């Protein structure tokens, strides 16, 4: 099993993802430079958080043209797992690998704090665990997910909504929505369920010392899927 963490200029959660996979999950992981192609033997590619190209223009808008994104699309087509976290999610949206777009948080402010997310589906490679509410940090200025008018219904229909912001008890309420995201959406998958984009940061909560280890559940699920 081999995982890769992409490094774009301006990525800044690349080392955090790398550390969580290597030191906490103890799996084989490489950095993949944005200017190169990824070899065919990667089972899972992670697009980390940060500010690729400074997020100048629009989040993810420039990074999606990086050469590595061609391999990412190719590997995705072959059914390999792709996980976009925060800026990685934004890049996947700009690249059209996931539907919708991001606009600024309703408060117009960057928000860094712990939130709760409800796990809506257990039958994806990323969420094969029983815990239904995760405590996990967000850190973004543009996590306000938007999609065209019939988008939400389509996402529902194909069970593509994986995470929604919720209360600690699991209620999906307006107050629990930190950024204005439509339907409290915090993470979605493609119809084939091998690409996940999520705003919260599982790599920031994979050790109890950091305040929560719920993020580890997501990585464990991926590893279980890949070793099956």
């Amino acid at each position, binding site marked *: 099993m081999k995982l890769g963490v992409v490094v774009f200029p301006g990525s800044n959660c690349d080392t*955090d993802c790398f550390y969580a996979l290597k030191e906490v999950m103890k799996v084989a992981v490489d950095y993949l430079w944005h200017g190169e192609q990824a070899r065919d033997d990667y089972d899972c590619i992670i697009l980390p958080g940060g500010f690729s190209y400074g997020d100048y223009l629009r989040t993810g808008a420039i990074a999606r043209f990086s050469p590595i994104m061609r391999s990412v699309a190719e590997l995705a087509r072959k059914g390999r797992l792709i996980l976009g976290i925060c800026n990685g999610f934004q890049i996947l949206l700009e690249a059209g690998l996931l539907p919708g777009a991001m606009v600024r948080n309703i408060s117009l402010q960057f928000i860094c704090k712990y939130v709760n997310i409800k796990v809506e589906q257990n039958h994806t490679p990323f969420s094969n665990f029983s815990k239904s509410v995760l405590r996990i940090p967000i850190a973004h200025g543009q996590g306000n997910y938007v999609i065209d008018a019939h988008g939400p219904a389509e996402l529902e229909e194909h069970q593509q909504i994986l995470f929604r912001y919720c209360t600690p008890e699991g209620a999906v309420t307006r107050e629990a929505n930190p950024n204005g995201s439509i339907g409290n959406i915090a993470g979605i998958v493609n119809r084939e369920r091998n690409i996940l984009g999520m705003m919260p940061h599982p790599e920031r909560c994979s050790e109890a*010392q950091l305040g929560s280890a719920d993020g580890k559940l997501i990585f464990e699920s991926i590893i279980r899927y890949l070793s099956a």
Partner: protein
Amino acid sequence: MPERTPLSDPAITMELVSDHGLSEEDYNHIKEILGREPSFTELGIFSVMWSEHCCYKSSKLLLKTFPTSGQRILQGPGENAGVVDIGDGLAVVFKMESHNHPSAVEPYQGAATGVGGILRDIFTMGARPIAMLNPLRFGNPSIAWNRYIVNGVISGIADYGNCVGVPTVAGDIYFSDSYNGNPLVNVMCVGLMDKKDMTLACARTSGSYVVYYGNATGRDGIHGATFASEELSEDSQERRSAVQVGDPFMGKRILEATLDLIRARVVEGIQDMGAAGLTCSTCEMAGRGAKGIEIDLDCVPQRAENMSPYELMLSESQERMLAICPRDKIDQVREILTKWDLECCILGTVTDDGLMRVKHGGRVVAEIPAAKISDDSPVCRREARTPEYLNRLTKFDPAAVEPPADYNPALLELLAFPTIASKRWVYEQYDHMVQTNTVVSPGHSAAVLRIKGTNKHIALSCDGNGMYCYLNPYIGGMITVAEAARNVVCTGAEPIAITNCLNFGNPEKPDIFHQFAECIRGIGDACRELNTPVTGGNVSFYNENQGEAVFPTPVIGMLGVIDDPQWITPSGFQDEGDCIVLLGPEVTHLGGSQYLYQRMKVVVGPCPEMHLETERKVQAVCREAIRAGLVKSAHDLSEGGLAVAVAEACLRSERQLGAVITMNAQLRLDIALFGEAQSRILMSCAPSSLDSLMQLAKVHNVTARKIGTVRGERLIINRSVDLSIASLQEAHHTVP
């Protein structure tokens, strides 16, 4: 303002000299150094290098009195940042800077470029920045303009720090009319490195290349250093050249590229172009290595057209770096820079003649003995005089203020007072978790970060109560250090070194210089007693608005080390039934308290006292008690006194525990609850640990009293305070 073509350099008149902030004496000195009249470009170079901001002419004699050495100190003041040995082959690099004037004019960009600048100071030493702190002082938030400054500064800091991926883990914010129109924006950065990677800003080998990388040079920020060395006035806006704009994406790339260069061992010295840009970086690097530097300005990447040598040398465009690179390493340097999409521009070489020689269009436009610019810079012995206001203010007897009729609203109002209220609304705008080292987040006594790959943690705090320093600059100076150390001790750390930023008014005024001199004496004495040497810092003078100086505001950034993760101690209560213990001396008056400031709207009364020996002992008890496993929570008492500390300890407990406090009836309750006596720590411990804790205090001859119990869902103090935790919460989270 200078002409834009080199061919029409203005003639040098005494008026031009004085417009450059240089005295006749300075000018004669320049002629002596050069053995001739300076060229226009040379005049510009001397003017920035001899500005207060760059050469510390008013402060350097006094700064020499700071204790700066110690076993752990690898690099004291004088380099880009201080370096401290934390064991395991690792070193922490840290430094604080001010960006007050730029932030007054353009709060967003002023603060953002401040962050960019302090980051560069850290990574040029070879360290990866791992944390930022930002002490901020704003004017009265009920004035719309001040709120505009607050929002601009905070989003400027957030946008830059978040983008480069360095967590902002602590800070402090005070609001006072004293900072109307002249906010203080101090930024501190902390880096971590392998001791072997330490790189100095020094040109050592003649023949080595002088390499420029980063953003192109424009006409922005010319005379920024001079601007920082005068009072703000109505036409400050006009006098400035184009405002500098921060480019965090470039900041991030030069950070990564610089660390790559250093780890590949292909450069012998690096300095960023901060204040005084190309001028400062070239002559300081040459000066430190007793070498010369020759550069050709035609090789400088330029963003604007027809820039004169004067402008090129003085521009303060952001995100620019200068490296000294041995000739045989240039290809590797180019390769690393290219990887990060940076151009490698060779401006010139290091020479043996000790001269800084600047060429432009084939002509030599400046030729100055490099070391002399720093070594021979002017020194001013400023006059100090005890300000008259001190007698007036300290004569006031705060006991004459009536106690509140009802303590419940009094406490709630105090908790909601902008300076005391929770700063969550601020630190949630900062990414404080990136790099996954933040073990204790903002919102506690001090931030704690783990050092991956070791058991070690570091604790960081910044503090500086300008009001105390205004009331008594000597004691205020001591308190600033003591409080910062106390905050760090409460988390379980041992304080080991400080950096500082000294924000004062116009040093040419004897009153102000008295404040400055006394604060320095206080800081120095406290650092000696607490064994926390000064590793560096920054002085910001001329913080005045319409002739009124801001409070004398020294800010201390404290570094502490925790060798065993089990010592890490939270500031909030942990378990129902735990004993609440107050460590430290009795409070005797309300002088200098936020409570008085809120009620009377004036700064009055004697400053709280500070006995350094008591402080040291209290901290020792706290540290030893923590190491002995006796302490469940520790929180230092500061603004707002005991009542606010207890309320915060309730609010910071995960389960929002209440407390029942019984205060000794001999003292006036308002003084006991809101007085800001120093050297006090609020602790909680299991009932079974109480005796040992008391015993430990006794051994050290430190007063300790059990004042209550963690219990229920309300805060109850004698018969006077009875409030639900929810109501405390609501008050404390008021956003100004």
